[in-house]
């Protein structure tokens, strides 16, 4: 059973990646503009926000909203989600002030949340112990909100740039976005590594999200610093990372089913089992990475 599903995930990742790359080859014709890239980043931000919204709503409900600040990520990520959906349909080559402030707010809320989670860990007996890193407020979770805000805010800044040779942070925009996405992948990787270690890698498929994304992140750094050109190998790994988000939800759903009482006992197992909303973070970042790669290909 275990082996079959593990083989299943591998095949699914491979297929998704292959289909993705071949599709790319078909619609190469229209060149990627900076607004297209910005819209994809809006969408990626929205997907991250969706992940944060469902995860923080569940986990903070579990935490009984002990601190009123625990409502913050729910409100902020919902706004970020709306801003992302709006931005994804918006072709205007200039930043939207309202969306921009939502994104900056989300990023700040993510930073503040990290502070709260660090405080939660250190106030518990044992302070910086493995036990508290595993079972207190997850230290990496608010980073996803920070990333959602950062991807969105960058998308808004990108719209303000000229269509030819857009620049961000004093470098070609494609390079900046590739580096930002790569950093996001590495951060998410840290959280997954910690929690899959807590889960004792009891299913070999649990290694997939700590093996595939770092390769994609490294290839994105290469995209950023090497001369721009089309890179099918980078696209392949990014698409595999994107597929992880979908297949991961499937595995997590199966993990919940395997807990005592299964899905009938959802009121316990949704919280006790692997987090259902977590894996799509990888899809969001990989889609942003693909957009960065496409933009980078147009640069000199």
């Amino acid at each position, binding site marked *: 059973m275990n082996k079959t599903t593990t083989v299943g995930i591998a095949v699914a990742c491979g297929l998704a990646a292959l289909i993705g790359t071949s599709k790319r080859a078909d619609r190469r014709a229209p060149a990627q503009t900076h607004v297209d890239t910005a819209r994809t980043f809006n969408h990626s931000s929205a997907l991250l926000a969706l992940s944060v919204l469902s995860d923080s709503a569940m986990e903070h409900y579990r935490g009984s909203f002990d601190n009123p600040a625990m409502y913050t990520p729910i409100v902020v990520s919902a706004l970020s989600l709306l801003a992302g959906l709006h931005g994804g349909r918006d072709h205007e080559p200039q930043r939207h002030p309202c969306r921009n402030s939502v994104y900056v707010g989300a990023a700040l809320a993510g930073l503040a949340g990290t502070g709260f989670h660090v405080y939660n860990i250190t106030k518990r007996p044992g302070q910086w112990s493995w036990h508290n890193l595993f079972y207190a407020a997850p230290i990496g979770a608010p980073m996803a909100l920070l990333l959602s805000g950062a991807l969105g805010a960058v998308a808004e800044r990108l719209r303000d740039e000229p269509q030819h040779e857009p620049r961000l942070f004093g470098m070609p925009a494609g390079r900046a976005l590739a580096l930002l996405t790569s950093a996001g992948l590495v951060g998410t990787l840290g959280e997954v590594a910690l929690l899959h270690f807590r889960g004792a890698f009891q299913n070999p498929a649990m290694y997939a999200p700590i093996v595939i994304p770092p390769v994609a992140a490294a290839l994105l750094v290469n995209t950023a610093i090497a001369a721009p050109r089309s890179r099918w190998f980078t696209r392949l790994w990014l698409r595999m990372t994107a597929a992880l988000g979908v297949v991961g939800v499937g595995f997590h759903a199966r993990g919940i089913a395997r807990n*005592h009482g299964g899905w009938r006992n959802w*009121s316990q197992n949704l919280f006790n089992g692997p987090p259902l909303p977590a894996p799509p973070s990888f899809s969001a970042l990989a889609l942003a990475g693909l957009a960065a790669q496409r933009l980078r290909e147009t640069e000199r």
Partner: protein
Amino acid sequence: MNLPRYPEYNVLDKRDTPSWDDVTRAVIGERLATPREPRFFDAVQWNAVRALCACIVPQRKGSHLDREPVPVPALLDAKLAKGSGDGYRDARLPPMRDAWRIGLAALDAESRARHELPFARIDDDAQKTLLIDMQQGELRHGAWQGMSSELFFKERVLHDICGAYYSHPHAWSEIGFGGPANPRGYVRMYFDRRDPWEAAQAEPGKEEQAREENRRVR
């Protein structure tokens, strides 16, 4: 009289919820259906054991007890009739069934020696005095057959009777216990947190809120 700490909480409300499965329902159902008539004790022992249980876990009908009393003697009898024991035993005491036969006979013998009546027929104060002497190991009638009355009190009377009382769902409701965590356990594993399927404790002045939450416990 204090108000109940978990007002309107009834652990049996969880019977048909995700908290319990078929195995749990079967085990609890069997316990609730424990025969009220003794199978292990004879009539004389039954009188003594009922009086003894009433001393150790008094369950007089009163303002705080608006439910059926826990059938402690019947649960104890069922345990002895089944005879599976605890899985361990103090070697200074005879096996469980022998210890109970000897202990109840000795209790009646001590009672007759002092009051010319069996234990079940003497008044409450006399029963209490006799049990205090038993607890302090001061009963040495020949009917004890060398068994220490102190050990019998501590390791059979208290252990088996209190164990029987708290094995019953009525006692769980009283103390806010959730019963077997099978299949549903607990997810809010931190101080002063409560899962929605746990009993709500009445804080002073907030009894109505606890009552409302306990009606919803599923």
